[in-house]
């Protein structure tokens, strides 16, 4: 009996962790206690285990250093910064302004309010990043409008709840930060990888509304034109937009010789600033060359866009690390709140208190997980899990299926911090052994965990919406008509199409890894490459790299056993491993970058992968 326990301590330990956690004592301490308890059991049973338990008392001395490692971790520093930024923005009333204005802009078309909710959801996701705040703001502002003009209650509820959860996948989401930390990859790469799936997901939500507007137009009616209290005037908005494009393109052409690949983003910045300045002058001087609607849209929309540029733009063009961008975003949020006269001492202390609380519980879950893993690795638990996961039939797809299923089910009970800190470290070795790109895996997991906010009956977005949606019959403040409440099962039913869209997105990312893998320099198919060997030039040195077929490269990396992360290493890599991937001069998906730097990919497997440069030789 004792021997049986000694030989199977890893599974027993895992089962008892489930028991410990389900008791409901705070996760951080339950994890640590479980780790310590099994440390003692493990040391006692080590002689009976035939060498599968490698625990002894001196190993406990490494605990301080493990916890020190958590404290001196640079990556997670981005968590308090983005949290603080989000809460300050939330208090600045940005969501309300956006919903009101964009709602008026789109309202008179069929499905318009729903489109506005989705768009604003994506904008808020990229700025405040707080699911609760987004859902509640939409529930307070957009839901009454949708109900008043006869939207299907399920569609209205589902759209709001789902749009609020976009904060989980759109950078700079906290999920992506903790995932990057646990996967041992850079946050910048994670953001690069997640941005395209996040945009596609937003597009799919809108496509769903579009289909509804064709096949069930009564579910998403257009609002009567008089709802636009800002008046008509889409034309001048169009003119402003065309002017923006023209100025942006001009600036792009002007900047291209000096700024290279970054000229497109910088050009857009110039265009946006020019229009913003013009609108402000137009409005304050009373010139009113533009319609009120156009003025309002531009004035409301530009500050969040500027903030998105300050945070995400600077990360993507390599100006700032995610931590720096988070800090600048937090300062930007303070400035924005100040300009809107919404900054007070109470707002600051409130945001600081909430940020400190979140930091403390998140970091302590991580500390608890580090104590747990000390023992779990000592009883060869990682080997057990790796074996379990790699023996799933179907190789890579089998692994992804099992992992996603487990996470989807656990997502009903655990929140994403717990999932990431407990589960992800266990699956990394197996993923590595199968040669799965960890950023790709991370994006898949993030999309999966996003659904846990939407799944009835425990989905948090649904709770938030339930708390602000009318529970009993109420009198509409505008029409004076008596309206039916929104029933809980209508909220649940409304969420289901969006859960299906989410899961479809997970499958899509699995089937088309390119959606994520563009974060690193495209892999070169050796057969189609002509390479002029670089002389040792500094980074800017020109390389005659002819890129191979983009679609073909995903296949390519599966065919190279032993080297599953073949980012291209073409340029002489100054400080190879240390080069922050955020510095990759990729303008985006469009043009293949003129200059290819080593991605972080093979850097994490230098022992297994030879740089492609050598392969080509």
């Amino acid at each position, binding site marked *: 009996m004792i021997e049986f326990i000694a030989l199977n301590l890893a599974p027993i330990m895992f089962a008892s962790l489930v028991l410990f956690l389900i008791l409901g004592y705070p996760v951080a301490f339950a994890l640590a206690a479980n780790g310590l308890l099994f440390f003692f059991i493990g040391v006692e049973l080590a002689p009976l285990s035939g060498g599968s338990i490698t625990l002894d008392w001196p190993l406990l001395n490494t605990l301080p250093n493990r916890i020190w490692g958590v404290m001196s971790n640079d990556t997670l520093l981005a968590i308090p910064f983005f949290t603080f930024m989000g809460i300050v923005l939330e208090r600045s009333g940005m969501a309300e302004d956006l919903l009101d204005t964009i709602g008026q802009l789109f309202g008179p078309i069929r499905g318009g309010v729903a489109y506005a909710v989705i768009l604003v959801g994506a904008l808020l996701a990229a700025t405040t990043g707080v699911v609760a705040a987004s859902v509640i703001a939409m529930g307070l502002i957009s839901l009454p409008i949708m109900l008043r003009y006869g939207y299907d209650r399920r569609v209205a509820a589902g759209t709001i709840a789902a749009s609020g959860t976009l904060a989980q996948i759109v950078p700079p989401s906290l999920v992506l930060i903790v995932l990057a930390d646990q996967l041992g990859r850079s946050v910048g790469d994670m953001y690069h990888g997640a941005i395209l799936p996040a945009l596609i997901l937003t597009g799919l939500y809108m496509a769903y509304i579009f289909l509804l507007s064709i096949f069930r137009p009564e579910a998403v009616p257009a609002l009567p034109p008089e709802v636009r209290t800002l008046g008509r005037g889409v034309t001048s908005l169009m003119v402003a937009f065309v002017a923006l494009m023209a100025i942006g393109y001009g600036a792009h052409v002007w900047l291209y010789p000096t700024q290279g690949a970054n000229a497109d983003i910088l050009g857009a910045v110039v265009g946006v600033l020019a229009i913003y300045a013009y609108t402000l002058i137009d409005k304050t001087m009373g010139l009113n060359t533009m319609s009120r609607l156009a003025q309002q849209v531009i004035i409301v929309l530009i500050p969040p866009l500027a903030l998105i540029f300050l945070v995400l733009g600077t990360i993507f063009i390599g100006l700032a690390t995610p*931590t720096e961008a988070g800090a600048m975003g937090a300062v930007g949020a303070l400035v924005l709140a100040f300009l809107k006269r919404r900054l007070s001492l109470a707002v600051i202390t409130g945001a600081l208190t909430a940020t400190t609380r979140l930091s403390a519980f998140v970091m302590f879950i991580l500390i608890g997980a580090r104590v747990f893993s000390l023992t779990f690795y000592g009883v060869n638990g990682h080997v057990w899990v790796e074996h379990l996961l790699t023996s799933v039939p179907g190789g890579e797809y089998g692994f992804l299926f099992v992992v996603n299923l487990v996470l989807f089910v656990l997502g009903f009970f655990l*929140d994403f911090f717990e999932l990431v800190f407990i589960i992800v470290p266990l699956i990394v070795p197996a993923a590595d052994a199968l040669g799965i790109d960890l950023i790709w895996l991370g994006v898949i997991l993030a999309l999966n965990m996003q659904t846990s906010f939407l799944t009835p009956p425990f989905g948090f977005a649904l709770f938030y919406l339930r708390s602000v949606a009318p529970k009993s019959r109420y009198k509409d403040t505008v029409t004076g008509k008596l309206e039916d409440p929104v029933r809980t099962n209508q909220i649940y039913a409304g969420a289901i199409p969006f859960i299906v869209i989410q899961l479809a997105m997970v499958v899509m990312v699995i089937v088309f890894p390119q959606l994520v893998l563009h974060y690193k320099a495209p892999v070169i198919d050796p057969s189609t490459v002509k390479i002029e060997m670089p002389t040792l030039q500094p980074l800017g040195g020109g390389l005659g790299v002819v890129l191979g077929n983009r679609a073909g490269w995903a296949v390519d990396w599966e065919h190279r056993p032993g080297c599953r992360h073949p980012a291209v290493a073409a340029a002489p890599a100054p400080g190879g491993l240390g080069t922050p991937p955020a510095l990759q001069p990729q303008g985006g998906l469009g043009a293949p970058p003129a200059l290819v730097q080593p991605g972080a990919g093979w850097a994490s497997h230098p022992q297994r992968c030879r740089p492609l440069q050598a392969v080509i030789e």
Partner: protein
Amino acid sequence: MRGLLGLSSFIDRFNEIVGKAMGWLILVAVLVSATNAVVRKVFSTSSNAWLELQWYLFGAAFMLAAAYTLRQNEHVRIDVLYGRVSDKTRQWIDLLGHLFFLMPFVLLMVYYLVPYVAQSIRSGEVSTNSGGLIIWPAKAILLAGFVLLSLQGISEIIKKIAIMQGLIEDPHPFHNAKEQAELEAQALIEEAQK
């Protein structure tokens, strides 16, 4: 019991002061990090001391605020079961959890951190990065965090026993996820109406 409750409320007050003060460190960290970013870009220099200061501040914030977070009952739980059992059972889970999960862990950490920090102070440990900060104050913060947590654990045990004996009201009763969402929504609505 009166004396013990006095001790408990003293610990509570102390950790509240510390916990609330820690928020300001986060604001300082934000400002330091933003300045670092600008300086790095504009003047093309950076200082390891200032870079290290960022996580020093954040580390101090979360380590020293953990005790206050415990006091406020804000460390996350899994409430599938906990949310469904009676108040009485919940109190037992908390009491036994404090005694057998929390206290052994934090006391063991204090036991191992004392020599760890002493060693660091004796050797005058300095960051391995050139121009970096001295390390031992940060390690001392680690120790201080666990000492504060141990104290708060004692206070929580005292309070839990007093609650179970009906001597005091539960200052931070448990709310399940749904109630919590409602409370949060309520706060945000009030905020919006202001």
